């Protein structure tokens, strides 16, 4: 599903996000990316979503070297990936329904299909009854669940999440992680970056440990 071959990302100014990282993630895996802040977790996810391009090496997603994709091919690439952000990036002026519907609107689905799939996604995260609420009326945990519903509504094969529990207390964090696990069980490949070691201790799964941009450890099933 995802393969990094000796990937280095150097930012303008010389800071190195990733250094010579090689790894492989198979379809259907649930992988946590851990490390201190600044270790390169975000960079790794950004390279997959083509928010950044590698300085050296190859990033392959489903066998395609995405580092070489032209700019106009980026939107189509991103539509195949679900993304969850630490600050959830919901649009405050839109309802929960409209927020979750946005990827489908972008993909150009019919209104009827959009309704059906948005409801299904909201049902998956347990927020079907809040579809007309605005994000600010929800708790932070609920907001993040809306963010997750938006990430899965397009039925991506791959979901990446950058510190999805960064703003949540431990109980809510665990709840969110268990939600990811449930989604993974229906076949979505998942890559979740978190620095919350305490949280990971309660979860099993493969971990990629980054340290100063290098892949320090690749721990298999716990």
């Amino acid at each position, binding site marked *: 599903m995802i393969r990094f071959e000796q990937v280095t990302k150097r930012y303008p100014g010389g800071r190195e996000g990733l250094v010579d990282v090689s790894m492989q993630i198979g379809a259907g895996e649930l992988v946590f990316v851990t490390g201190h802040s600044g270790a390169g977790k*975000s960079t790794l996810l*950004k390279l997959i*979503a083509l*928010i950044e391009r590698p300085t050296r090496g190859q990033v392959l997603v489903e066998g395609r070297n995405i580092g070489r994709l032209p700019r*106009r091919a*980026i*939107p*189509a*690439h*991103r*539509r*195949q*990936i679900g*993304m969850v*952000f630490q600050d959830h*990036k919901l*649009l405050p002026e839109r309802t929960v329904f409209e927020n979750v519907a*946005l*990827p489908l609107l*972008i*993909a*150009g689905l*019919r*209104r009827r299909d959009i309704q059906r799939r948005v409801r299904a996604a909201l049902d998956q995260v347990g927020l079907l009854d809040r579809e007309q609420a605005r994000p600010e009326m929800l708790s932070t945990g609920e907001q993040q669940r809306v963010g997750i519903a*938006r990430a899965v509504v397009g039925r991506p094969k791959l979901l990446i999440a*950058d510190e999805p529990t960064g703003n949540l207390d431990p109980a809510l964090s665990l709840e969110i992680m268990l939600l990811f696990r449930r989604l993974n069980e229906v076949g979505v490949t998942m890559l979740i970056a978190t620095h919350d070691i305490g949280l990971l201790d309660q979860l099993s799964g493969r971990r990629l440990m980054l340290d100063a941009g290098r892949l320090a450890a690749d721990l298999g099933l716990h």
Partner: protein
Amino acid sequence: MRIWLARHVQSALASLGRLWRQPLGTLLTVLVIGIALALPATLGVLVRNGEAVAGRWTSVRDFSVYLQPGLPVEQAGELAASLERRPLIAAVRLITADDALAELRTAGGFAGVIDALERNPLPHTLVVRPAADADDAAIAALADELRALPAVELVQLDSDWVARLDAMLAFARRAIWIAAALLVTAVIVIVGNTIRLDIQNQRAEIEVAKLLGATDAFVRRPFLYTGLWYGLAGGGVALLLLLAEQALLAGPAARLAALYGGSFEPLGLSRGGVAAVLGAALAAGLAGAWLAVARHLAAIQPRV
């Protein structure tokens, strides 16, 4: 195809809704556009009316030939008959001195003055109507030839001032084109700037949409429709302003026409003029939006 159409309709309505939710800002922008477009259109209508008035007179190329005072009326009649045989001349009408005096007595209110005169001071006059196919140069040559005749005292070409009016109208038309070009440019700038602010205000939405895989076209579309709506509404305001102007000017125009002894129906914008105003408004709105979008949208790349 149906989905494509539905997306456009949806974008267009969404843009309209967004404008509707900020009524004051939208109204001001639309008014500025309307006024900017109404200005050249108003000048155009004025020139159009001027042309209509001038057109009524340019077809009249008659000129007056005043004969030497004291010339016997028989000689005047002979001259008229001989002129009438020329191919360049369609008709010659003789106004004898007596007829002219009688006309002056009834028309001008000079009865008292005229009665005080011992003899008729007016000459016989020939009103020459050139042939329809005679060109201006030929008529001028004819006038010069007549001027040289011993029986003729003065030849007055009435078409001189018509030619001047024509020149003035041509000048005004050119001036209008310049004004229109400047004001349409102003509209493009106004719309461009308004859309630029819109883009800044929606920066967060644009970033999220791009993160979720929105194409440039998807992000661009609502802003282009916003420009189109601004143009359409501004064009509509311009046309309403023109209608109001026409209503306000109808009365004074009629009085003015009455003073010149004619009736005059002031012309509004022609159908082509309406299309030109709306077309210019739409094009300027779209162009402004396109400029803003091309300049500012690419600069927004998601930062996570």
